[in-house]
């Protein structure tokens, strides 16, 4: 099977039903995408499939055939992704950091769809991503900062 990940085509020797998460991590060695629950409950494994955030722990590789997967490793190639990452660093968002790959991918997808989200939009888009350390308030602030930065750049 051929999988397009971060705009590179990978030849994958794995069963059709293997979740994308384990194909990325164990077969292809891309460990930026994290395992948290295995049941689409925590969002640590979030990647983009054709630009939409999905939980890679329950999505079989077969579903990604002829589609494009984007992971944390390449999120900086999107303008929004880079702005989100910069805001994360600027605000010292992470504590342990384990959930943050998923948070960043979800936040990037949010800004791609909604460049100026309000608190409710942010809560709705981000509530699938658990952070046990409790960095939610900083995540909210960082998303807003990134949104404002992108808007300022756009206007400028």
């Amino acid at each position, binding site marked *: 099977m051929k999988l397009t990940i971060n705009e590179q085509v990978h030849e994958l020797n794995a069963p059709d039903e293997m979740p994308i998460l384990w194909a990325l991590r164990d077969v292809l060695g891309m460990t930026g995408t994290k395992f948290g629950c295995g049941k689409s409950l925590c969002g640590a494994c979030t990647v983009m499939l054709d630009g939409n955030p999905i939980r890679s722990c329950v999505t079989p590789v077969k579903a990604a055939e002829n589609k494009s997967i984007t992971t944390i490793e390449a999120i900086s190639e999107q303008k929004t992704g880079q702005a989100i990452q910069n805001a994360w660093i600027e605000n010292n968002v992470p504590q342990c*950091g384990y959930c943050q790959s998923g948070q960043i991918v979800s936040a990037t997808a949010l800004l791609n769809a909604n460049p100026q989200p309000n608190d409710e939009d942010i809560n709705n888009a981000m509530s699938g991503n658990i952070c046990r350390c409790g960095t939610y308030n900083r995540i909210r602030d960082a998303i807003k900062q990134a949104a404002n930065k992108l808007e300022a750049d756009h206007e400028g």
Partner: protein
Amino acid sequence: MKDKIANISRRNFVKGFALSGLVLAVGLPGLSTAAEAKQYGRDGMPHGWVDNPLVFVSIAEDGTVTIVAHRSEMGQGVRTSLPMVVADEMEADWAQVKVVQAYGDEEKFGNQDTDGSRSVRHFFMPMRNVGAAARMMLETAAAALWSVPVSEVKAMNHKVVHEASGRSVGFGELAQSASKLPVPERESLIYKDASDFRYIGKSDMKLADGEVIATGQTEYGMDIRLENMVYAVVAHPPAYGDTLASYDDKETLNVPGVIKTLTLPSSAPPAVFNPLGGVVVVAENTWAAIQGREKLKIEWKAGPNSDYESAAFREKMQTSANQKGGKVLRQLGDSYQVLEDAEATISADYYIPHLAQAPMEPPVATAYFKGDSCELWAPTQAPQASRDTVAKWLELKPEQVKVNVTLLGGGFGRKSKPDFLVEAALTSKALGGKPVKLVWTREDDIQHSYFHTVSYEHLQAAFDENGKTQAWLHRTVAPSIASTFDASSVHQMPIEIGMGVVNIPFSIPNIQLENPAAENHTRIGWFRSVSNIPHAFAVQSFISEMAHQQNRDHKALLLELIGDDREIDPRMLRDEWNYGESPEQYPLNTGRLRRVIEHVTETANWGKSLPEGQGQGLAAHYSFVTYVAAVVEVKVSDDGEVSVPKVDISVDCGPQVNPERIRSQVEGACIMGISLAMLGEISFKDGVAVQNNFDGYQVSRMNEAPAEINVHLMPANSYDDPLGGVGEPGMPPIAPALCNAIFAATKKRIRNLPIRYQLEA
């Protein structure tokens, strides 16, 4: 991780200070002074502390300063906070500092047991020593280079300068010559003046790992990959104490990618850090291993806890808590008599179920058994205990076991227990020395934690005709962490009763504190802030209830109970533990507790009028030698939905080394406190944890987080003041403050956690 450590050793030996030899004396005052004197603080910890710059610092010729972080990073920011102390004191430029993680070796690095909110509290001073000694060695080397008196040169921002001649030389150029100098005696160290600090106490420090985390380049325990590595998961016995009777792996072996199965020995109680036993499925990838585990047909032999049932156990605890007697922890006057005679009394019971730490990275370990040695990579809070425990199980000497500490995807106490490292090591050995990554799924993590205890607290108070509190009675019932190490233990240990049962600083003439027995039926362990959770919840809720009954302002009553500003010797409160700190250096200071209460109530505008369905709640708690008070504001909708518009938290943790990380820890503790109060529950049926993933064991999500968390740090007089803990003390006041706020908003009193659906009409 393997490569990183190897590189560092090389640099140490080839380029760094280590040229002068690594075997200089290390600071182990705990061993060098009289054995009979009780040791406190960092001196009292296993293997004490080390402040040898040759152990912690190396400088490459390009000027890169490498600083060893010897405590485990699990989100508290220790890889930033301690190395930056070294960097500041040695005048290194933080931008040219590289932080590397120590492997487990306490004789070399000092105590590495990362829990108890101790890392900065215990190692601020040793790390200042490291930095000061390194700086003085660099200055001596520069003075020799220019043949000028050392008093004429000064280290400044990664260079040593000779102002008189305008000369300067970079740290990198001095590394070789400085490394050949003797390490200055501890007594001769000259410290920077606090006004010259560049990083210590500054609020704009960037995380050592911020960039790699944001770009997904970090290496957690879950991310370790070795050549020829296989993957494994374990089918653990369902109830604690169950054992394997038989199993059939025929279907398992048919799963593509599954290599084989093997068994792990189960161990008799006490649990200690021993593996639970069960069947291991080894596969070419984690997913195949998980699939293979699902196909196992296993017969378990029921053990002594297979009928553990939470509702029944709760009734048992309730009975004990409401009976006179039990082990008396402290007695002042005659509470029983006063309660009997008093005109006004009040009584209430509080219950908190078991909790699981549930760090986002479940337990995981990679082991490579090589016959006469074993190397491991794991997210462990206890590198030395991991090393010792693995060595015991492999029948090796600790020095034959190397434990590489990865980043931890959260810990909260779970990763202090190295049972999962032992599983990985035994599996690698059983595979004849193949490297194996043994992964706990979320189900394993939530069902086989070392759980936070289950607790039942009974409180009574009596008032005189003027409303003054005359008697206090508290019976605390909870299986003890001690039972994890001694199966016969039924009473709480000094460390548990010293978390807010005996060390309540209240000026009440009659006090009776009792601890009826409670046996354990599962592995009990420590969870962030430990027994402070139930004790603070009960005590701080009860004072709010007392205030309501007496028609008093909660804050006014709380301050009245605390009484005059004074320093209490914890031993006078029968607190023999005092978080391991010296009772002289760390008395319980009621003035500091009063100040955080006054500060937070003032900032939060305590007593302000709020619309119907909204309310404020207050709680204050002393833990980990830090003083914290919180005001939580809630909004409860008509259908009982709780939201939190605002939380104010005032913290007096003494001197602040990295205020930015202190804030983040308190913010996180606030959310974890709300999480456990609103949702946290592990319950048992037939000895098995009912919840097994984040659907059953719910934790707060972003929509449940407070809209606003304001952390207020109380200034300290000087960096010579004793430091308080930071990682844990933010949590205990949150649940009671939240429930007190809910009462203010709704007149509904929550005495049983979690709140969950209790407010629904």
